[in-house]
């Protein structure tokens, strides 16, 4: 089968969505299909976001089936359009009130939200099958657009390389340094930890100067390491050597970090409003779920640092909860009879 995977491109940005698309291509090819990735640039500002969506309406897509992924690629037209929704334009939906959304409650913003929600609903209704990456994304679809979808979980990148290792003296957080990922929760948490446990945050992004300032002002010294970009080998090693993983984004769609941590047999500390992460992390079973405050995250880290046995038990349970994830059933569902 000739499959076109469609996704939006934010030039000069690379994150979970890009990895997801590439891994889907690999899985499709591994299942014997011809697969190509089709990407168009998207702009997030209100003035241009609709044009990005309209551009997809005109793209000729000659394949047996198209699998569309993130906003606005699902505006593509094809008789066999399967939607596997990563996320919509969240600034117009659940994150409209977030400081980074750029969305106000003025006439223009409200009309943009109204129109985009109407457009989204119409083009998503065109799909021959509607899947989401997680129950969190499916819940947003029914709440905001009145559409029901089936969550379809998949393995994270590096799934076959992540292994457990000896627990070290640090908690690890690989993440983009962006507002919705809230790396400042972990940075701030370190000020509330007295056991000498360290934090390593790997990733790049606009919040780095803020985190550096926060570490200076809190006198964290060497207890907060901003490792910047790390390659795959180092990433695997950092997971393996950590005591636990702290991942506390705001209302995450899916969250590879959670699954990668579990595959490395590490418990995950997350927050009560972290969205898709909560579909995997169960408090006291394979991680700790706390209020989204630096104090609460700090207390959770302290608890694990003081009881490494607990961290190991939670991490092992985490591993068991994700080790059955495979790409083969995902490909079968996406291209199967229901689609």
């Amino acid at each position, binding site marked *: 089968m000739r499959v076109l995977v469609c996704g939006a491109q934010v030039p000069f940005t690379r994150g979970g969505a890009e990895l997801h698309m590439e891994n889907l291509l690999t899985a499709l090819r591994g299942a014997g299909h011809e697969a190509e990735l089709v990407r168009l640039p998207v702009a997030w500002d209100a003035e241009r976001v609709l*044009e990005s969506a*309209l551009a997809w309406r*005109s793209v000729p897509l000659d394949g047996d089936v198209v699998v569309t992924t993130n906003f606005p690629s699902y505006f593509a037209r094809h008789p066999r359009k399967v939607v596997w929704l990563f996320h919509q334009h969240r600034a117009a939906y659940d994150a409209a009130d977030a400081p980074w959304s750029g969305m106000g409650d003025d006439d223009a913003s*409200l009309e943009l*939200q109204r*129109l985009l*929600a109407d457009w989204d609903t119409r083009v998503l*209704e065109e799909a021959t099958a509607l899947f989401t990456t997680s129950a969190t994304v499916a819940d947003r679809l*029914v709440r905001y657009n*009145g559409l029901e979808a089936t969550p379809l979980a998949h393995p994270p990148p590096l799934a076959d390389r992540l292994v457990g290792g000896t627990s070290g003296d640090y908690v690890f957080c690989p993440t983009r340094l962006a507002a919705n990922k809230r790396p400042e929760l972990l940075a701030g948490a370190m000020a509330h930890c007295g056991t000498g446990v360290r934090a390593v945050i790997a990733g790049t992004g606009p919040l780095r100067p803020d985190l550096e300032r926060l570490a200076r002002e809190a006198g964290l010294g060497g207890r907060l390491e901003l490792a910047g970009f790390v390659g795959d080998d180092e990433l695997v090693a950092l997971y393996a050597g950590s005591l636990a993983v702290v991942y506390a984004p705001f209302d995450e769609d899916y969250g590879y970090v959670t699954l990668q941590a579990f595959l490395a047999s590490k418990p995950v500390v997350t927050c009560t409003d972290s969205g898709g992460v909560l579909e995997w992390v169960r408090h006291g079973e394979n991680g700790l779920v706390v209020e989204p405050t630096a104090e609460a995250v700090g207390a959770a880290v302290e608890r694990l640092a003081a009881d490494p046995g607990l961290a190991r038990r939670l991490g092992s349970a985490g591993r068991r909860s994700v080790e059955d994830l495979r790409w083969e059933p995902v490909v079968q569902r996406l291209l199967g009879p229901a689609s």
Partner: protein
Amino acid sequence: MTTVTARGATATTPGAYPPARLGLLTALGPPPAWAALVEALAVWCEPVAARPGEPGVVAWLASSPQARHLPAARRLGLPVAVMETGDAGTAVVVSPDRDHTRPAQRVPVPVPGIRASQAWPVAPFVRARWRRRLGLPAGWTVAVADLDADLLDTALALAAAVVVPGELLLGALSWGQACVTTAEGARAVGAADGVEAVVAASGEPAELAAELAGDERRAACLGRRGRRLVERHHDLDLAAARLARLLGLAPPVAGPAAAARRHLDELRTPAGSPVRARVAAALVAPTPEPTGGPR
């Protein structure tokens, strides 16, 4: 209170086509049942009351008894549309086209019908933001029958849920509203209980509306399905567009600008939406620089 209204807006593009004159031939003006259809046709043409043989008319729309007065039009090859109501339902029969090459075409006219383009579907979470902006209660519900007519559209755009009598149900559904209505009202438009609307068979309507207002997911599903019910089975704009094409009133659509317009129409983008102007500006061909002729 801010008045939210979509009156006057259409999903198509008024002014994008040169107006053609559609002759209306009826004994006493259009029968009331047809008035909304003629109004919808005005997006595509200029309907004018006219006598047979009137110059400048390019097509005719006639009531069934009056159609016999149009043999001259038929001889001239002008398309004639005849409004009929019978056992097969209400429809306009167009015959024949200018070239007499196609058989008569029947365009069903929905009864009851409404112009879907006159309301903009508003998702519950957007309504909630509007209410917050205007200082209205978060779970504001409205009994439509108690409203002044000039507040109707505003209430239908903003309320979290409404109690609506049968005769106003289509209008409420076209705004994407979560509606509580009567069994008769739901039956008249083909709305199923719990699918496109909630029928107040046993419960107190106001309490049912309050329940809906507190359940954003259910309200979103009802609102979406209700709007689709209107678009698929009760939309006079759709019938008018098809009629306009058959009568030769809508020019053929070609070229990238027209394709973009079609995409915007398919997405039911309001006529005055700024995105239409931006797309039109983006698709204007640049004026060629003068070269001074071949060298």
